[in-house]
């Protein structure tokens, strides 16, 4: 199920070879709110920053 209205649904994809279809489906992450890979990578970086902030606060709070 495609949860992102910006992305084409599988019925929008013209008939193509298996390799081409695989390439198109590989570009879509199928993750809600994180439809493209750059968005996924940005999410990972934001989560990392959140971890570091948490660990820094923990270090300072109990120093």
């Amino acid at each position, binding site marked *: 199920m495609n949860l992102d209205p910006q992305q084409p649904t599988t019925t929008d994809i013209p008939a193509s070879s298996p390799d081409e279809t*695989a390439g198109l*489906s*590989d570009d*879509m*992450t*199928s*993750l809600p709110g994180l439809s493209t*890979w750059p968005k*996924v*990578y940005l999410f*990972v*970086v934001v*989560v*990392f920053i959140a*971890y*570091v902030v948490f*660990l*820094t606060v*923990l*270090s300072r*709070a*109990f*120093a």
Partner: protein
Amino acid sequence: MPLNWLDYLVLFGTILGIAAYGVWRTRDRRDLNTYLKGAGDTNWLVIGLSVMATQASAITFLSTPGQGYESGLGFVQNYFGAPFGLIVISMVFLPIYRRLKVYTAYEYLGQRFDTKTRLLGAALFLLPRGLGAGITIYAPAIVLSTVMGWRLDLTIICSGIVAIAYTVAGGSDAVSHTQKYQLGVIFAGMAAAFIILLSKLHSDLSLTDAMTVAGGFHKLQAVDYSVDFSKRYTFWSGLIGGMFLALSYFGTDQSQVQRYISGPSLRESRLGLMFNAVCKIPMQFFILLLGSLLFVFYVFQPSPIFFNETAWKLAVQHDASGQLHPLEQKFTVAHEQQRQAVRHWIDATHSGNAQQIAIAHKEAMAAGDRTDQIRKDAKKALEAAQVGKTGSDADYVFITFVLQQLPHGLIGLLIAVFFAATLSSKAAELNSLASTTVVDLYRHLVKLDAGDAHYVAASRWFTIFWGCAAIAFALFATIAENLIQATNILGSIFYGPVLGIFMVAFFLKRVGGTAIFWAAILAQLLIFVLYWLYQDKLGYLWFNPIGCIACVLFATALQGKTDYYPDRA
């Protein structure tokens, strides 16, 4: 507390049940592609768990809590570069591996450069990974055999044979599918141990008080922003050195590459890697926090002077100098004084009087320093007594807690955790060692045009060969470092130049095989020399970027000197 029938039932039921499932699930794997890469039906979660389980050996679960107990949370910085390394692998490495449909990462080097570079890449993988497979099996065996009273050689041989059996039978698919359940056992066991530790701590003090004690003894210093190259773990060494380590380990080490190239699509493999990018740091944090809280637990509960109690008792029996028993008595008194001083400090924190808190904290720290000094004296006396292999005492902290504080059944589950972790990483290592030997050496140099059945049979024999080599290495090994650090140090010595080869392959198209071949050898020699000269002055994570950058610079310089052009195979 010795294991009873319930513990043995849980232990053997879990370990042998998962291994048998792996054999049954993959009973029809016959062709080489399926044997080495799997059936291509693994989803992103299985890939992600498989990548995680391959990295998380028994060393992670035995030794990391000890690292937290001894040095606090600082080791978590080792993993700060991992998310960035995994993003780069997902963007650059993975699409290339999948497009070329390679079995091993080194096959790509053969296509990009030439045969000798491919063989060098394979050799730089096989040598440290072959040794690493020995450490993977030896490390938990030495700890478990010591505390359980099992024979070390039998522990090594039995765990080695189980891993060999299902890896030989089912290949890559068996490894992935068993890792899923092994990791389930690991998470369940570690969560149970954490909850029991918290409940036992609660009888003496609140969680906030426990965190205050841990913090007061510098066990919660997770991030160090200082720029000091001699420190092993800082934010910068973790971010930069850790990123290079992660790039090398996840991007070029076949034990990991084999886990994620087996995915049915690029999407599934990428999601599996991103799962690890998000989960790795919190996982390590919780294991280290467990160790830090164990420190607090053993401030309030009776603590042995030496956690490897078997070695201590043996030394006391043969103590010609007569200094061990008095040290033990001195420690008991000092430990009680420390407990009272810390209790006094905690009571002071509740009063809110800053001056009173500062004085009580100072007294608690001084009492802690006294017990530490007695422990150091005991370790020296123990080494002088020469009772055989003792290793790092920190590695025995968690297993001591498990055996003395957990109820029966859960003890069996936690021992199963250590064996499950051993088997999961060991099987992945054997699978990758056999794949590389067959694909990059045997099929390329010895038997060029045989059928799939022949190469699958060869893969099985090489799995057995590497398994036996690892067992043999483990039987003769001795490791003085904390185990988790020993593994990372070994990797950091070899990974930099290997990563350099791949970086040149991906990004410097004009560099050819001859230039990169000699550049990698020079870079590896440089790392050997630097490690020999500066191992105490330079944190080991820095060897990763130095090796990689040296390899890239040497390759560029050599290419410029000889003016070679890419001599692609």
